[in-house]
């Protein structure tokens, strides 16, 4: 076999191997989506989105309160997590070239790898125990903490990408440094930061573990901050863990809703990114 044929042969083997590996990776992904779609779509109807869960034995019932609860929790998480995360990221990028900055950066990196149930336990000890009950507030804080590392690091990276010439332009116009950061640097990085925030929200939306002992579950409508609240992932967890066939069906349908929501959030993040690169 000549050098040329050999090379061609090796090239062919490598290429087929890569295609096979890709297929292997893609099969579980697609089959999962397909399976959720197949199993879940039968349970979907209008009342599923707006009704409360029904007791065992009664037909129907929905995830209305769980959906509402998830949005309440995300709202609390965002109110707390977005400003803290964005400003911590700004701090790291603009003033973080010191040992303290390094420490914060390290903590954020470690935190993004910490299993989310630990965040649940942390908030349980810090918020739930003193309040003596799981609550929407505690759950929101847990999700907010979960979002922090992503928001901090994306903000830092994106703020660092803002060209220094813009900062100098602001300073040379007699703007104080904090004004330059707030009015020039942050807006220039904003669309990218929004992408990071979207991804963080998408991740928080699907998290069950940190909510199990912080927000608990609640089979009725509620928007009270100091009371237990239902959420989509926890509702799925309860439906799926039950021994009843009808509830399994509900779990599949709710899972489908969850997947679609996460997909939408990710797509929104993508759109933000592409509109940004378009603007450049």
């Amino acid at each position: 076999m000549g050098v040329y044929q050999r090379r061609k042969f090796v090239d062919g083997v490598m290429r087929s191997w890569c295609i096979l590996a890709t297929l292997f990776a893609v099969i579980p992904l697609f089959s999962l989506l397909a399976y959720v779609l197949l199993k879940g779509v039968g349970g979907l109807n209008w009342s599923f989105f707006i009704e409360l869960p029904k007791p065992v034995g009664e037909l129907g019932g929905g995830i209305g309160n769980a959906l509402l609860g998830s949005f309440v929790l995300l709202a609390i998480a965002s109110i707390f997590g977005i400003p803290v995360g964005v400003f911590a990221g700004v701090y790291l990028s603009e003033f973080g070239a010191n040992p303290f900055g390094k420490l914060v950066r390290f903590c954020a990196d470690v935190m993004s790898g910490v299993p989310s149930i630990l965040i649940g336990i942390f908030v349980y000890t810090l918020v739930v125990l003193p309040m003596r009950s799981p609550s929407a507030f505690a759950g929101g804080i847990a999700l907010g903490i979960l979002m922090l590392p992503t928001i901090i690091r994306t903000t830092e990276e994106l703020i660092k990408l803002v060209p220094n010439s813009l900062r100098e332009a602001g300073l040379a116009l007699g703007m104080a440094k904090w004004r330059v950061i707030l009015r020039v640097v942050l807006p220039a990085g904003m669309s990218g930061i929004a992408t990071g925030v979207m991804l963080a929200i998408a991740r928080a939306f699907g998290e069950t573990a940190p909510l199990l002992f912080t927000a608990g579950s609640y089979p009725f409508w509620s928007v009270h901050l100091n009371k237990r609240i239902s959420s989509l992932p926890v509702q799925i967890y309860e439906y799926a863990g039950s021994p009843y066939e009808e509830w399994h069906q509900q779990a599949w349908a709710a899972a489908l809703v969850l997947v679609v929501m996460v997909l939408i959030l990710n797509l929104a993040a993508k759109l933000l990114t592409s509109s940004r690169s378009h603007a450049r």
Partner: protein
Amino acid sequence: MITAKQMFQLRDTGGAVAISEEEAPLSKERILRSQGEEVGALGKMQVKDLRAWFGKTEIIKGVSLSVADKRVTAIIGPSGCGKSTFIRCLNRMHEVVPKAHVAGRVLLDGVDIYDRKIDPVKIRSRVGMVFQRPNPFPTMSIRENVLAGLKLNGVKVSRPDELVEQVLEQAALWGEVKDILNRSGASLSGGQQQRLCIARALALKPEILLMDEPCSALDPIATSRIEELIHSIGKVCTIVIVTHNMQQAARVSQYTAFFYMGELVEFNDTDILFTKPGNQRTEDYITGRFG
């Protein structure tokens, strides 16, 4: 030190002094004298024994010169000789670079801008700056860019539309952008962006405008437009312009300073410096023997 009274007298006669400067160009004696305390107060800005460092490297090694009011002063010299560093010391922009520091005095209307009581932020709104690469704010419209220095500083502008028109007119950009004021500043061509940056600096009504090679990123046509407007602005505003292009210095300036390796080699009337340079190194540089 000059007294406040002397300063005001000098200010009141500012116009007359400027004219006499034009009639009797800076002779060598006057340059030397201008480094003395009293005569130095004649100009808009006096630089005294200025030194600037990046870390431990001394980049500007004791420069003294006087910037004439409502005139264009050019700074020339080979690249890397410290021209940018020097003019960034004139509005306290040098110190925003980490580990950079400055020694010496820079008197603006007789008051040292490096005095501990002086807020660098205030100095920068009195001494404007245009950079080598046009840097309009990409998230703002043309109009917002012009007003940025005022609006973002919380200054209320009584007649913003008039101001925008006036400074864009001054920057010779009004005709080209008057119908697209709400478009992004980044959508303009390089030359237009640079004129927008000039307008943005002029909106603050600076007493001095520093320009660091404002045309080096531009094509010849854009360059000549900027040179024209330097000419017209230079009649109402003091300008210090860095350029590595000697023809440009000769075209736009009344005074020229030649820098070499962080030192001021020669400072004189532009006409004299380019026709009868008093120093061998200046002559070598302007005749193209090095650089």
